[in-house]
């Protein structure tokens, strides 16, 4: 091949340009510490790093979310702990009132203490978080959800439970609604309630109740209606079980104070002397009237209704009186209901604890995921300094060799030898 000086020069210049360009790219990579600074240097890795960066940022957001949820749940947990303390106090006070030895003045004093506790409970129910949101309002976080009424408390919230995303596809409730904590508490023993008839005149008091045969229990309401006068000598009388629709023949039984009455898989303990008034022929003719006790499935009852009933029994409004039997029944009912509230609060406390655990787990998973992501990003994006510096060195050598070779060959010319 015939070579000319002009071609040699052009080729040398273009080789020089190309070498200096690679040298500059490499130098830029070394000074930034990145394996590529534009996508064209490694398109697949650039796309992947872009995606991983987004996943990493999202994961970091999940960690932030988890912290936020954790703080909300800590606030709730604290409120629930205080509520539990208040419930224990009411329970003790109710027991004290139920001893049968308290004077009316003492009962008034106990009633006053329960009233004070009720207002503490109200402020707990209207707890606000650091941002001023009412934590027991469900989704309605902007207004105080609870307000006292004559029979308990009204609820302006809803049963919503806001979720917080703590991992891809994993959300956790950041609180519980007032419905779940204060309103939806099953009354009685949690399965059924025993309510003395409003017109009872005897001294029958409801004691312990239980489901003895869950298989036989149908959940049907029935009324225990006394059908004979109480015999003080034998502490006994008779009763009918009245159901709707009527069971034929009507189940009957003999009542002995303190002995359980069993029907439909449940057991009800009554004590005292239920009243019975036989029918008179008149005039005016009156039907036979016996004391009644209604057994019905539990319904949800607000904690505030429970506490208000207790207060009303302990401190009857002016113009009304409460017999010792009525007081005993009211306190017994209150004890049952408070017990249910204690159980309910305990369950929710446990759930909150479970959520806090889930958050802790999610946070540690997120932390290790973030470390993993950073490692992956770094593996794709970070410069291999050893190889880059070696390459730089090689490029440098090549460049100076090219320069030297050019000056050497340019020195060769026949004209030098023509004298």
């Amino acid at each position, binding site marked *: *091949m*015939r*070579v*000319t*000086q*002009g*071609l040699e020069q052009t*080729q040398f210049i*273009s080789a020089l340009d190309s070498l200096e360009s690679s040298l500059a790219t490499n130098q830029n990579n070394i000074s930034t510490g990145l394996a*590529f*600074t*534009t*996508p*064209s*240097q*490694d*398109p697949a890795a*650039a*796309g*992947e*790093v*872009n*995606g991983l*960066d*987004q996943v990493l*940022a*999202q994961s*970091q*957001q*999940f960690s*932030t*979310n988890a912290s*936020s*949820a954790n703080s909300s749940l800590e606030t709730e947990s604290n409120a629930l702990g205080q509520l539990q303390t208040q419930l224990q106090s009411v329970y003790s006070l109710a027991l004290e009132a139920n001893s049968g030895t308290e004077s009316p003045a003492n009962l008034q004093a106990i009633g006053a203490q329960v009233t004070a506790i009720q207002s503490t409970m109200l402020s707990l129910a209207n707890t606000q978080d650091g*941002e001023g*949101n009412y934590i027991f*309002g*469900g*989704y*309605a*976080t*902007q207004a105080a959800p609870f307000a006292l009424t004559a029979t308990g408390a009204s609820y302006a919230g*809803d*049963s*919503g439970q*806001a*979720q*917080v*995303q703590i991992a*891809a596809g994993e*959300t956790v409730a*950041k609180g519980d609604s007032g*419905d779940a904590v204060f309103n*939806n508490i099953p009354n009685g023993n949690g399965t059924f309630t025993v309510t003395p008839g409003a017109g009872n005149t005897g001294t029958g008091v409801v004691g312990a109740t239980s489901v003895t045969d869950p298989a036989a229990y149908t959940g049907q309401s029935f009324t225990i209606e006394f059908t004979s006068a109480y015999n003080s000598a034998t502490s006994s009388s008779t009763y009918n079980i009245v159901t709707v629709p009527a069971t034929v023949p009507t189940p009957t039984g003999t009542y002995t104070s303190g002995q359980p009455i069993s029907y439909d898989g449940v057991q009800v303990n009554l004590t005292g002397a239920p009243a019975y008034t036989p029918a008179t022929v008149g005039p005016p003719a009156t039907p036979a009237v016996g004391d009644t006790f209604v057994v019905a499935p539990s*319904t*949800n009852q607000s904690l505030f209704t429970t506490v208000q009933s207790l207060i009303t029994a302990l401190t009857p409004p002016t113009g009304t009186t409460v017999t010792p039997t009525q007081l005993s029944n009211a306190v017994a009912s209150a004890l049952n209901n408070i017990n249910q509230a204690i159980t309910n609060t305990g369950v929710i406390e446990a759930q909150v604890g479970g959520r806090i655990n889930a958050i802790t787990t999610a946070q540690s998973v997120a932390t290790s995921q973030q470390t993993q992501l950073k490692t992956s990003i770094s593996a794709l994006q970070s410069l291999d300094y050893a190889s880059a510096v070696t390459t730089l060195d090689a490029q440098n050598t090549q460049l100076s060799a090219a320069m030297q070779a050019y000056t050497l060959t340019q020195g060769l*010319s*026949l*004209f030098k030898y*023509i004298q």
Partner: protein
Amino acid sequence: MSDLFQISTSALQAFETAISVTSNNIANANTPGYAEETVALTNDVPSGAEQRQIGSGVAVNSVNRAYSAVAENQLNASQSSLSSLTAQQTYTSQIDNLVGTTAGGVSTALTNYYNAWSTVANDPTSTAARQALLDTTQSLAQAFQTTSGQVQNLNTQINAGITADVNQINADAQSISSLNAQIAIGSANGNGQAPNDLLDQRDSIIANLSTLVGISTTTDTNGAVNVFVGNGQPLVLQNNVTQLTTQPNQFDASQLEISTATSNGNVISNSITSGDLGGLLAARSQVVAPTLNKLGLIAVGLTTSANTQQNSGLDLTGNLGANLFTSLTPTVTSSGNNTDHTTATAAITNAGALTGDSYVLAYKAGTYSLTDQQTGAAVALTGAGTTASPFTAVGLSITLSAVPPASGDEFLIQPTANAAGNVAVALTNPSQLAAAGALQTAAGANNTGTGTIGSATVQTSTNASLLTPTTITFLSPTSYSFTGAAPGTAYTSGANIDLNGWQVAISGTPAAGDTFTVQPGAAGNNKNALAMANQATFGVLASGTISVNGATSDLVTSVGSQAQQINTATTAQTAVNTQAKQSVQSISGVNLDDEAASLLQWQQAYQASAQAFSIGNSVFTTLLTALSAT
């Protein structure tokens, strides 16, 4: 005797010419386009009766150029390809830098936007979180606009390049035609001696023209060269020049196209595929436009999905969410060649069906056709183009102002080309961000059955009664009634219940008297904000297979791949070009060492001839002396 002088004199003249030619070669060693010249010597044949065995000297027959048309053509073709790639490289590398590893900052802005929604979900009533979200949304819109604007600016650079190229091509064509005329005269008058310097000049101009546009040439018998561009459009025929002109694109006046006088104003841009001009046209259609379309597609995916979600949530004031972003509509332009004033409008009906391509709607001979501008494929069209029955295709609905338009009318529909530049935030007040779900459901506190109610979904967000609280009361385990509606609707577990534009399902066995409520979302409801944050990974594009986030990664990879591909092709073509240069140089180039040897050769021959002359002189003197002695 006179022979001796004649022979020596002819040799001295010939060698002097040879030394001149060699000196001229040395003088032009670095002149671009110069072809090495050599002297062709012939021995003079004795004439007349004196024909004997001794010749009568030497003569310069001609001075020849060392030239290979094949090698020159190869060099010109490889130069055209290289120039095209270099022009494209200028733009791919700019986009490579602009889009960079974060899609021009769009990717980062998107992540911040989705995370800001997550923060709002954590505390939906916090004004600070909402304001931060609104600010992030504004930054996101800005990122789209800036990136799109920077890429759009490349079109201006391309137009300037096209204009400059066309001017230079016309100037070169003019020079070639003038040289054609001079060469024809020179050849005719040269007695067989070619006008070498004119030929060199013309080759040099043709080489320059090759860097601007791919050409093909033919040579006529009179030595004139005819130059053609594109698919054989003549640029130079003998002494005549057909100039290239630029004209606005029929749809988009801001884009310049190429045409010639002989093409009757028809655009020949598509046939120009090499040279700097071909590279500029390719950069515009294959680099700049697709990048804008891809970026626009991301913008459309983001804004439509965000707006849909906004519309199905409640803002802090309890109203259904208004659009977060202004709705993006396709750009529709009528062809400048249309013969009537019919206009077309288009709307995006399904972002998931968009391809990122642009379409041409044409009406000819009673038939409508829709063609994908990038692939050239025909697209099926349904509907009649009227408001009542618009054309629907590829996620678009297209309406014409008058049906039918004039035959031959064409409309360009660009669903995504300008979308990224038009991303704008429609909301100004942080309380307008719809963090709450539109509806929330609840079961009555004293329900005794096992019925449960699912989430209510908005079916028709425009229903006026959508947000009216509704209680569903069960009359028996098998029938229910709404507030104010006819009682006794039969109940099926798990079946959808539709009312006021929402839908909800109740399952299980409710008891008589059980109630379920559907009511507007309260302020602390964060369902919509959660859904917004989850859109980060939710497939909205390409039939729901690619998320907005994923599309940015795809953009980064595709821009990088294209730049890488052009870089690789340029490197390869540079090698081809160098090879072609070497071929030409090895034939036509001036090697100074060769010339030095030639100089010595001719110098010695000249000296020897002069010596022969001197000997002839002394022979003559000897003869004269001898004669005078007698």
